[in-house]
């Protein structure tokens, strides 16, 4: 008897589609996943309109920033046993959440002549719109981590991301500390799992993977504020949409 394969759907709302591109970076591994499970929806590799059926796992990248996006998201939630947000846009709203921080009407007016006629929603984290079961963090996601989580999910395991900071991974790999050089780096407060890929290229961490729960946020901010000022620190927190949730967290 042939075993029934779990069904996976991979969906894209408004975003750069870089997570979809990143997860196919190891095509042979990706095909192994497609072999163990059935990938029934994936716009990058097939063009049939979405056929709504019961999916065992649905991955969603991007943000719901139009009425059509929102409707699709809610419908996917209805049909998905497990819903997984894929990447920073889905988890935190992505770079375009800067709209919320800077006045979205004003920005739309600067970009479009017919700015009143377009959908210009407040950017929401997907988990504020529908129930989310798991998350694959990052901008873009780390393809190896995605594969690990996807294989875990189709074999009924609970996927885990180890609680440790990017800073830990950076030190372990022996990269020079940018904070010590005076550059504002969010490595100490950001969830690891990226192998400190940015630090490898001497790019300060800007927190795309969200928070490391064990971090001492206040002491890092005190240091960064001294280095570059509070205004710049807040600007950096805006880039990957983490500013609002972080502020709430610190207040607690």
């Amino acid at each position, binding site marked *: 008897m042939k075993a029934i394969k779990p069904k996976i759907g991979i969906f894209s*709302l*408004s*975003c*750069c*589609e*870089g*997570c*979809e*591109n*990143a997860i196919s*970076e190891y*095509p*042979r591994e990706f*095909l192994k996943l*497609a072999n163990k499970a059935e*990938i029934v929806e994936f716009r*990058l*590799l*097939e*063009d*049939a309109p979405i056929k709504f059926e019961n999916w065992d796992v649905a991955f969603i990248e991007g*943000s719901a*920033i*139009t009425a*059509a*996006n929102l409707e699709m998201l809610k419908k996917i939630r209805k049909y998905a046993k497990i819903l997984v947000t894929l990447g920073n846009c889905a988890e935190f709203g*992505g*770079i*375009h959440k*800067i*709209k919320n921080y*800077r006045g*979205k009407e*004003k*920005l*739309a007016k*600067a*970009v*479009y*002549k*017919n700015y009143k*006629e*377009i*959908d*210009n*929603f407040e950017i929401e984290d997907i988990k504020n719109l529908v129930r989310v079961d798991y998350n694959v963090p990052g*901008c*873009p996601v780390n393809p190896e981590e995605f594969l690990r989580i996807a294989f875990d999910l189709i074999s009924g395991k609970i996927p885990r991301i180890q609680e440790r900071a990017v800073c830990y991974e950076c030190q372990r790999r022996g990269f020079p500390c940018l904070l010590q050089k005076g550059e504002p780096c969010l490595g100490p407060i950001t969830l690891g799992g990226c192998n400190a*890929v*940015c630090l*490898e*290229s*001497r*790019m300060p961490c*800007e927190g795309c993977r969200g928070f490391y729960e064990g971090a001492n946020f206040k002491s890092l901010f005190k240091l960064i504020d001294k280095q570059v000022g509070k205004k*710049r620190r807040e*600007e950096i927190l805006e*880039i990957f949409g983490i500013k609002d949730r972080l502020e709430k967290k610190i207040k607690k």
Partner: protein
Amino acid sequence: MGFEAKLFDGQVKEAFADVLEGARLIEGIIRNRPYEDAPIITSRICGVCPVVHNLAAIKAIEAALGVKPDDTVLLFRKLLLLGEIIQSHTLHVFLLSAPDFLGDTNDFNIIKKYPKELEMVFKVRDFSVKVMRVVGGRSVHPIATEVGGFKVLPEKKKLQEILSECDNILEKAKDSHKFIEKIKFPKLEVELRPISSSQAGEYSFYGGDNIISGQGLDLSLQKFYKSIEELQRPKSVVKETSLYKRHYLVGALARILNQNELLNPAAKKLFKKMPEEVKSNPFYNLFAQSIEIIHCIEEIKNILEKLSSLKIPHEIRQKIVLRAGEGVGSVDAPRGTLLHFYKINKSGKIVDCNIITPTAQFLNDLDHSLKIYIPQLATLKDEERVLKIKSLVRVYDPCISCATH
């Protein structure tokens, strides 16, 4: 993305793109932020071609601030860019467009049907991903690049390793081309007005000071930027462009028509085999992309050979002196000429930004081609007709993330 065509007596009156992507307002969110954020944020316009946005932003800011990168920096930027062209083209040619002509639009089926061929394609793509990782730090959203230079440069050992793979990968790309070369495209004759960047003595991706057309136009980059007219249809989040009120073509086919004399030898040989139709049939964009893959591999080898005789520093960074200014930066992206414009104030903040993407530029050309193509399909069954229309749309390689941004 959908396409809407209004038919009148069997003739197409109007055809236009109907985009489901929302407005991320990238040109808005970048305002009032320090210029250093622009290459990071704008690379997120597109996850298939982030490098071109990153580099166009860097070039525009360098123009605004009067920063001149040195020759080694230019070589590494070109390497990174060539990697991305190959990556994007392999994805598009073999997995997004060719399936239309191979009789199945589900790639999982195509991969099962042609495992040997797809394995060759994967090897070429793996190679391009490796180039981008080594030079840019990562393939999706580069991290090592910056205004003025590179935060870190690759070790020579890694460059040697890529160099040693070039010949083998070139053969794989040639074989992959043989596989799709057999495709017979539908007949379609339109007036193509190819536009691309231009550089003295080389097939231009990185871009120089001028933009050229197949009709003899030769404009400075600034003049070209100012001459483009952007039009936003009501409710649309895409600003389609025209040049002197006319539609025009950008992308692989435009580049290859404008500068095939500058292709590297293996690529040039394949271009010479193309029939005369290549000049007027947009379906040939698929072959143009495949030939460009071959050109890019040859070019990566050329650059790596140049670099192997140079001493590579660990990093090349410049102290940036702030000043108020504005600048246009352009590179030829996989899908065509991309322009970024920034105005920066004296404290280094961006006060104005405009981004004109390849897809926004060729949408009017695509509309025009559809108007000519659709009436030819009048006798076909609906299902077949839809597939044919989609195949023309896809062969243009529209990128909706880019078009919307």
